[in-house]
């Protein structure tokens, strides 16, 4: 590792280590020989084109999927299905949000605390209101997920993850449906959570501003393989052509504009 993460007040984060991870889904290889090391308390970003296996990789890191070959170690222990690891706190922001549709936004955000009886109801209500305010959903407790926009669902899902005080937090494209202002608020919150409790954060994102703004280190994945791992500066300077194309694409269409 080139940069040690800034020293947070408390260090809750766990180290994540992936060795030789391979996974086939319905016959096609989705992940091939993935090796990753994420230090405790680091903000580690995974970038890559759509369909390159980022969400599948996160599912392995969270223990929701089992690898065909290789291993995933979290805090030195092999990862298992999350409901079998009662002492380990994980938070995951799914790409789709994955809010429970039958519960209100407030119940969703407070679910973890309520189900595990960690706080009295009044305290939970206060925390829920506070976290919703953080993601810009103040006073939306009583709405159902079906009444929210895509970006609002994503923000509610982030609030739900913030409540957990996790040791490892996985964000699957946290800003993909957000406007630049909301995205910067979320980026700030990702960093703040890491500073506050020293959580290990793994962020999947395409959003170049977000990625280079928050990453301690980042990995670029393509076609189920790691292309490059390193600090943002190293990745920017990386010689791989595919990677450079991915980083430097811009939405100017001179050829199209000329014809109009």
């Amino acid at each position: 590792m080139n940069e040690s993460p800034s020293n947070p007040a408390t260090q809750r984060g766990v180290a994540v280590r992936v060795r030789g991870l391979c996974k086939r889904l319905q016959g096609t290889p989705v992940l091939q020989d993935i090796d990753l090391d994420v230090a405790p308390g680091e903000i580690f970003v995974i970038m890559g084109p759509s369909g390159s296996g980022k969400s599948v990789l996160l599912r392995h890191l969270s223990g929701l999927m089992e690898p065909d070959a290789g291993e995933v170690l979290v805090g030195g222990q092999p990862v298992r299905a999350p409901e079998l690891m009662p002492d380990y706190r994980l938070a995951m922001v799914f790409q789709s949000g994955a809010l429970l549709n039958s519960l209100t936004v407030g119940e969703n955000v407070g679910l973890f605390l309520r189900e595990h009886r960690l706080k009295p109801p009044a305290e939970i209500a206060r925390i829920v209101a506070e976290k919703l305010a953080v993601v810009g959903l103040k006073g939306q407790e009583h709405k159902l997920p079906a009444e929210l926009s895509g970006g609002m669902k994503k923000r509610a899902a982030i609030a739900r993850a913030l409540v957990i005080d996790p040791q490892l937090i996985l964000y699957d494209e946290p800003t993909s449906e957000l406007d630049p202002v909301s995205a910067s608020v979320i980026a700030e919150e990702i960093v703040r959570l890491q500073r506050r409790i020293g959580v290990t954060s793994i962020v999947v994102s395409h959003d170049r501003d977000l990625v280079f703004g928050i990453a301690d280190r980042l990995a670029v994945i393509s076609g189920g393989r790691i292309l490059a791992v390193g600090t943002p500066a190293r990745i920017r300077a990386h010689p791989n052509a595919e990677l450079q194309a991915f980083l430097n694409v811009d939405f100017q269409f001179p050829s199209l504009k000329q014809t109009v």
Partner: protein
Amino acid sequence: MFESIGEMALLFFRTLGSLPQVWRQRHKVCEQFFEIGNASLLMVCILSFFIGGVICLLTGPVLVERGLASSIGGLVGISMCKELAPVMMSILIAGRIGSAMAAEIGSMQVYQEIDALRTMNINPIHYLVLPRLVAIAVALPLLVVFAILIGWGGGSLVAALNHQISISFQSFFANLRDFVTVGNVANGLLKSFVFALVIAVVSCHQGLKTIGGPRGIGRSVTKAVVNCIVMIVILDYFLTRLTL
């Protein structure tokens, strides 16, 4: 198929193992319980009224012809409480509640809500399966009690009003009391309790293993209901054989 039966047995025993959690989940149990009641009480009443009526209508004239008019009450009474109420109500509930369980859990599976629960260290068996199993195991026998009483009522009404039968309420129920024992009713309730477990386990199992999008959910619902009905009818035979 044997794999599914194994998985279902496993799910059942895991759920039994989580029974100590039931007090924690009591709000969800109540919620499910009232949902089952709300959704099916009226239908249970209508269905059992007509089932009692049709049994009486079919057998009454034949029995009267052979001078056995006095046993109509007993026949309706026994058939209703030992067989028709538990089986027909269980099939109704499989269609009404089993389908809802499979659909709800199936959609939660497809839309990753169950994965979200799991990452929050919330066991889907405690959170989803247990409350449903407990609620239906209590609710179905209660509904069957209603069904038995209303079925008897339907039978007695037909016996009194049909001019080929015309047996008064008093003699219908006097006869019914001679035949039907508490044991018969308990037998019917025991059956319905077993069927309730079958409905919950089969439907939740189908829901949990749903894959694919909305079409997968539809497939799970259909499978859940069909499998429930098949298992209820087969088990009914063996339970009857056992308790004869």
